[in-house]
């Protein structure tokens, strides 16, 4: 009994630093931010806050900038998440074959995802620049008319290309998943005369669904929150610059409201709505997961 109690005490002692920081600097600010979204806080009136009820949330519904930005953000997420999931999985499938120099390819595919936003945006500016930019040189070589990559019509595509460049970050997790699929399943399938494509469709993909699911959920959470890349991609690219309209995403709008216009309370309301949208979407994906995610529960029991 004494030993058991000692372990209980040790457990609470060991988790206490994390738990205290979580309560004071995680949970409390979150609830505090929720409270502020019901006040008229604008940055300098902390001592005489006024409760304004749902006023900020009502403003949001009539703020066409916010509504449009939300639409653009959802649209970008709908493109970015499936494409980056497919790229990540495709590259991992290539690397999972017996190949020479696997480590080099692994590094090459993974590298872009660890390049800091600061550096990657600088690089992509060279790719996109309209006067003799690299992408335009390639188009010219292929006899396709040049494109104004940072202009209104193509800015969203440019942002998407830059985001997909980092999709190799999923390669490591996907590879770990692929390596976890038992070899004998493939051998049995080969004996039964299954073609490689059939093995992929009937064995690999079903067994990878938990990892695909993980990537999709994290992808949605991450995509909806994008705000640095569009700002940095803007010519000038300082932290408070306003990106061109197609790239004026929802969290960028929240930042503009807070830091450029000192509308702190409104900004908090914007962020809380974003938070709820993320929760609802994540929940939806969780709900649908029973139809397409395959878990080996009966074996793990």
């Amino acid at each position, binding site marked *: 009994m004494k030993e058991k109690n000692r372990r209980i005490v040790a457990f609470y002692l060991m988790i206490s630093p994390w738990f205290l920081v979580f309560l004071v600097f995680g949970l409390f600010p979150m609830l505090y931010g929720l409270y502020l979204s019901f006040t008229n806080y604008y940055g300098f009136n902390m001592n005489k806050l006024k409760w304004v009820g749902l006023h900020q949330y009502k403003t949001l519904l009539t703020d066409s900038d916010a509504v449009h930005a939300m639409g653009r953000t959802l649209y970008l997420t709908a493109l970015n998440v499936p494409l980056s999931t497919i790229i990540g999985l495709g590259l991992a499938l*290539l690397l999972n074959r017996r*190949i020479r120099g696997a480590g080099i390819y692994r590094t090459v595919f993974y*590298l872009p995802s660890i390049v800091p936003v600061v*550096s990657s945006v600088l*690089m992509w500016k060279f790719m996109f620049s309209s006067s003799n930019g690299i992408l335009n040189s390639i188009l010219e070589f292929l006899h396709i008319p040049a494109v104004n990559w940072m202009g209104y019509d193509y800015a969203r595509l440019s942002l998407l290309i830059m985001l997909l460049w980092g999709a190799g970050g999923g390669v490591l997790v996907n590879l770990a998943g692929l390596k976890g699929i038992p070899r004998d399943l493939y051998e049995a399938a080969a004996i039964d005369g299954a073609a490689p494509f059939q093995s992929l469709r009937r064995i690999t993909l079903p067994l990878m669904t938990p990892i695909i699911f993980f990537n999709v959920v994290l992808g949605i959470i991450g995509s909806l929150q994008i705000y640095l890349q569009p700002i940095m991609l803007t010519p000038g690219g300082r932290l408070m610059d306003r990106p061109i309209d197609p790239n004026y995403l929802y969290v960028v709008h929240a930042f503009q409201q807070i830091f450029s216009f000192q509308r702190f309370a409104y*900004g908090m309301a914007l962020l809380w709505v974003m938070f709820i949208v993320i929760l609802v979407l994540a929940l939806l994906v969780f709900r649908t997961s029973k139809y397409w995610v395959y878990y080996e529960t009966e074996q793990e029991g």
Partner: protein
Amino acid sequence: MPTTGSSRIGSFVLYVVLVACSIVFLLPLYLALVNSLENWYAVPTILPEVFKWDNYKFATQMLDFWHYFGNSLILCGISVFTSTFVSGLVGYAFARLQAPGRSALFMIVLSTMMLPGIVTQIPQYILFYKFGLINTYLPWIIGGLGGNAFFIFLYRQFFATIPKELEEAARIDGCSIFRTYWNMFIPLSLPVVATVSIFNFQGTWSDFITPFFFLKQVKYPLATALTTINYTEGGSTQIIQQVSVAAGVIFMIPILITFFIGQRFIVDGIVTTGVKG
């Protein structure tokens, strides 16, 4: 392995695809290098025309570069040291110690991984401001003491694979719970410790938004300095892209070094923990 005709064509196609993908992924990096050596205000090029290595010298001279570089090292040092240690302790508790409320608390750890950080960032700023912690490194020390949900999860998965008998033997020999963790679990888990340290370093090194909130310019790390200060000449406002990119290349070097040293560890760590899920 005997190779039939069709599989030889198959592997040829495989390598063509791999090399093509590699070129696409490396192209921006290559272009950054080439253009960082170009003349000032030159239009971007694909093939190197000149090799103006001086751009790298200017990148470190036109800003207080090494000062900001030093600030980055301080922040990374704090974060790697505290967060790696605390996350390990918490991960150990969740993996090996039974206590009431454990699974509920672990659900909280997992859910903090899902919450958008941005929802807490601004109230956090107000809080730190009220406590007088703005423009100090204390937010990083506090953050480090809180560990990191992803690292806690990673440690927990790894610690869960270590045999119970080892732990019991240590207990019989009179080892305290903390010493069992420190003298046995940590040495057995060096790949995970390395993985967490590297992720920690990379995350802190490239984070420029948190310092932008919590610090003033003099304490900015390099990442924040490079996004808020322009490389310009004289009174002109035109940015010298070639020097900016050279600075960006230098900025990446520490990240690349840690990645190359650690990539073996990272892959091993994730594969081992991932499979046990």
